[in-house]
């Protein structure tokens, strides 16, 4: 019995070593977060408008009927990178004709209203996801996250983190251009 106690450390270490060995698989990239949603229809969700804001709410049915490539951005007033991203998204709406939808994630409506008053509101529709339920449906890992949705209502692209900086912006705009081109062929 006593012997077994002394064997415990090495047994634990062997199990851990197995996991570490598995983790070294060169195919695996821990920085890449795949989305189960890609090429899938958008998840079912329905969100009320943000209280105190005139912008209408957002739900799956509305997104499906857009007949155009749209961008869905998950944001919150408490999220600092969102602030930086806001300027980029605003510019995209203005210059690239992006139709921008927002999911206001786990945010106090009053804070969100203040934030949008302060920075401007580039969103066409904003759904208020108070309890984070829609966030779960969309499978987000944090805010901000940005999705590109095809005209037929399928998720074409997902960007995790703020779309800020040259590399991120060009990556995103290329994905957007591709999405638009594919939709163009379809028509």
């Amino acid at each position, binding site marked *: 019995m*006593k*012997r077994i106690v*002394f*064997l415990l*450390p*090495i047994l634990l*270490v*062997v199990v*851990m*070593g197995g*996991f*570490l*060995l*598995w*983790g*070294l*698989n*060169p195919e*695996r990239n*821990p*920085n890449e*977060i*795949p989305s189960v949603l890609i090429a899938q229809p958008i998840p079912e969700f329905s969100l009320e408008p943000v209280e105190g804001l005139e912008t209408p709410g957002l739900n799956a049915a509305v997104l499906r009927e857009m007949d155009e490539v749209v961008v869905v951005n998950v944001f919150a007033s408490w999220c*600092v990178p969102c*602030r*930086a991203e*806001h*300027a*980029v998204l*605003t*510019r995209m709406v*203005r210059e690239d004709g992006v139709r921008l939808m927002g999911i206001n994630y786990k945010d106090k409506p009053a804070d969100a209203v203040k934030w949008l008053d*302060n*920075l*401007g509101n580039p969103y066409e529709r904003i759904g208020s996801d108070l309890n984070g339920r829609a966030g779960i449906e969309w499978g987000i*890992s*944090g805010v901000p996250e940005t999705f590109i949705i095809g005209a037929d209502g399928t998720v074409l692209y997902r960007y995790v983190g703020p779309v*800020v900086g040259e590399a991120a912006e060009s990556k995103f705009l290329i994905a957007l251009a591709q999405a638009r081109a594919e939709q163009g062929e379809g028509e």
Partner: protein
Amino acid sequence: MTPEIGQFALALALVLALIQSVLPMLGAVRNNSLWMQSATATAIGQCLFLAIAFAALMRSFIVSDFTVVNVVQNSNSLQPLLFKIAGTWGSHEGSLLLWVLILAVFGLGVALFGSNIPAALRARTLSVQAWISVGFVSFMLLTSNPFERVFPPPADGTDLNPLLQDIGLALHPPLLYFGYVGFSIVFSFAVAALIEGRVDAAWARWVRPWTLAAWMSLTAGIALGSWWAYYELGWGGWWFWDPVENVSFMPWLLGTALLHSAIVTEKRGAFKSWTILLAILTFSLSLLGTFIVRSGLLTSVHAFAVDPERGLYILGLLALSIGGSLALFAWRAPEMERGGIFAPISREAGLLLNNLLLAVATGTVLFGTLYPLFYEAMTDDKISVGPPFFNAGFIPIMLPLVFLMGLGPFLSWKRADLRGLVQRLGAIAVISALASLAVWYLTTGGPALAVLALALAFWLFLATLREWAGRIKLFSAPFSESRRRARNLPRAAHGMTLAHAGLAIGMMGFIGSTAWKTEEIVFVTPGTTVAIAGFDVRFDGTERVSGPNYVADRGALVVTRDGEPVTTLYPERRFYPVAQSTTTESAIRSTIAGDLYASLATPASEEVANGAWTLRILYEPLVLFIWLGAVMLVLGGAMSLSDRRLRIGAPKRKAAIAMQVEPAE
């Protein structure tokens, strides 16, 4: 030519390490003192050749020798000299060279200063140290050669990562490695003792100074890294539970447990196999850290370039060293005789509880750090484990530990008097509770956990001082008597007081800056005023300034309080054209009460307003206490290390008898 000398020296060091890994061990088995003695020479030689290799690499950096790939990738001719030097250990290869150099330095330390250690144990320890050395030097020569040349050489280098171009981070890796790798010698001692099959009080006494030295450096290294993150990353936080932070923190936690369990082994001959296990595991966690940082296993902000082949090699080394030592442990440790018995309320029991709590805390951090990997392996999904997990798992373990820390030093060995303890410490418990309630009242609220934690910090601080005052009979005896007692008190006791009080002070900093922090993130144009924590901060616009290898926008913030000028802060946003990246240089006004912290983020979108910036201003109470506490921990360790008992080892019995005889002559 210099890089070739470096590479040649590295190869020679490997040869010496190979000899040292076999000959002294065989000598110990055959009782051949000449073979055992050879370890001294090979340890000196190994350290010398690695130092030559390191100096060769450093010279390549100093003279900006762009025929060396490593210099090209991590330096630039415009960089200030200090950061050229720091570039030596800024890369995977260079830092690994530093790693093996420190490994050899600790081997050298035992070779030179270990004359009081029995020859066989010393020979075995140095052999085990050489095994590690063989593993890592061959790893360098085979997969990560820092001296690789490039032809044709480029005109200039691509710059050291600008985030690392900072005095705090220039010094952080050497200190951290000194701690990390320092535990290797403790590991070698443990393995040597297992091979020998004998662990006694003397063994613990030989091990303790090395543990202390490593622990001190690790403390300083972690604190320096945390300080760097605080002022350089521009987020105002000092700890993020990032995997790379965690892997340096785990050896610290377990090393702290080892420091304490070694005391029990030394004084009471108990906890032998536990102390051995801690010695093995502490260094194993250091190795795990080395592996995680260099294999790209987990997502982290400061991991090195990823290469699965290197990862596999290190994992093999890990399997050999950790697996081998623990197998040896499972085989030999059960035969070790048990130490003295003790009552449930005694210093032994207190230290046992201390060790359990520290081990559980280490396990929690380890689990949280590796959980994303486990989860992905089992379910193929990815998750991240963030501060909420660590705060929820770690803090509830630490609070009872802090309570125990106040109590522990009062406990006597074998059996302690509970009633006397309550009498002596009751008043301190009441004062601590009242003081934290007063803080709670004055700051008009705050999280309940913060109030409890603060009460415990007061408790620890006061109880530590009370214990020290009791020992030197402060106030209860004439001052001259107290002074005499203070002088006669072992330095280790002063060291403990300093370190424990340091932790209490650090805790106040952790609590104050977390629970009572205020933060404003605003858009500012010249003339905008922001009010925070009683200060008024006026933004006066930015100006363009240029440094040696960067250009910066420097903002000017005039700080006033009730109309009285306080200071002007100059946060910067630096752009490094060669590396094509931007860093923030926050501006901080530090006082003992708290830090006023300002950093500039990117300019706001052009349309909101011209010349507008995102300004982040924080007021963090008591942050200074964190660094002060860390300094006290290190000084406490240093004081304990200078204790006569550790400095000259066990008093020699013969000499003592001779002394007694002398007066009679």
